[in-house]
């Protein structure tokens, strides 16, 4: 049994179990913290750094999605500095891939695009990298367009942790990193993929989509993860 802690988030007194993260407790209390790699129902990897918050007495910024609450903690989720860093992180994603929103299947339903709006980003002031990336359309129902991938690894996690297939993983290093199916084989040839489509529905951008979707048509349905998370919560 975890103990209960009381803490302050943005000056507001809140309470949480000590096995809960800052993010969970903040959300329970209606305090928004931006996130990209995190999605309820999957493990947290702390990769996107959007959820970084300030905690009194700790010089480093801490990711809310992986940091557990503690008694007496004082958390700040908003500051000019945090907004500045969050904007830069999102700009970095736009600069890293080839995000041509106007011709994307997910235009209007994309979490990256939405995050840019939420953070007030109206242009990218960091250098564009314009990498040469491929598209894998070999699967009969789905397509992977690496140009739109933000390497959040949600597809990797949902495939491994929920579907149990572990078809997806990450290959390469640095900006050369890419998510791959099996041992970098064509998705369509994958003997492990069950074609369940969970990766597609969990992907925050238009990197994974259902074939035949036209611009703006691809909406994602990931409520199954919320359901799983709730069921787990009930078991606690």
């Amino acid at each position, binding site marked *: 049994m975890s103990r209960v802690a009381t803490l302050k988030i943005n000056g507001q007194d809140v309470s949480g179990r000590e096995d809960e993260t800052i993010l969970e407790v903040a959300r329970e209390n209606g305090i928004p913290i931006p996130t990209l790699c995190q999605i309820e129902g999957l493990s947290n990897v702390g990769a996107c750094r959007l959820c970084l918050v300030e905690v009194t007495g700790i010089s480093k910024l801490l990711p809310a999605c992986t940091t557990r609450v503690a008694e007496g903690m004082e958390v700040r989720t908003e500051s000019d500095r945090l907004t500045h860093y969050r904007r830069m992180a999102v700009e970095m994603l*736009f600069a890293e891939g*080839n*995000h*041509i*929103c*106007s*011709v*994307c299947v997910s*235009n*209007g339903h994309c979490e990256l*695009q*939405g995050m*840019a*709006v939420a953070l*007030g980003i*109206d*242009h*990218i*002031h960091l250098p*564009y990298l*314009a*990498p*040469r*990336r491929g598209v894998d359309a070999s699967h009969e129902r789905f397509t992977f367009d690496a*140009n739109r991938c933000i390497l959040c690894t949600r597809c990797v996690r949902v495939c491994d942790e929920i579907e149990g297939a572990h078809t997806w993983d990450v290959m390469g290093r640095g900006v050369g990193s890419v998510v791959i199916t099996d041992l970098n084989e064509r998705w369509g040839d994958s003997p492990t993929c069950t074609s369940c489509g969970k990766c597609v529905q969990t992907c925050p951008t238009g990197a994974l989509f259902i074939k035949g979707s036209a611009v703006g048509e691809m909406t994602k349905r990931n409520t199954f993860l919320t359901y799983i998370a709730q069921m787990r919560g009930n078991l606690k």
Partner: protein
Amino acid sequence: MTRKTIATVWLDGCSGCHMSFLDIDHRLLDIADMIELVYSPLVDRKDFPESVDITLIEGSVSNQADLDKIRHIRAHTRTLISLGDCAVTGNVPALRNTIGAEPVLQRAYMEPDMLNPQIPTIGVPPLLPVVRAVHTVVRVDVFIPGCPPSADTIFNALSDLLNDRQPSVAGKTRFGA
């Protein structure tokens, strides 16, 4: 009251942003007394004026002529606006940045033409190796993303500028809108 001079410029874009500008419709009449459109694909004037208050740029900087133009325009404009995704991000024209200019020319002029394949050079400006968003070559004062930005967004931004307010499009438009 002195009218503000306005210019609109069409670089490498599809003209959609200009269409959206025209979609402001009758409201253009509301601000007609406040502005003077001094240079635009919509008016008949060849040279960019000495000094313009507000210039709206549609399109990315894709060839040498675009580059020369935008540098000149910047030097003669008070408030420069990147209008639409091509100007703001490079958008569709910048799709070629992953492969470079040469393969595009090959595909457009050489491969389809069985009889007389040649890349035109006379009277057409050479392509830049990399398609640029406007702010990566000159300073930009206001960004209005969207493909195209809605007439409302453009109108609101213009009204703000005409009333000496810094326009804020945050939350009203987005990349790809």
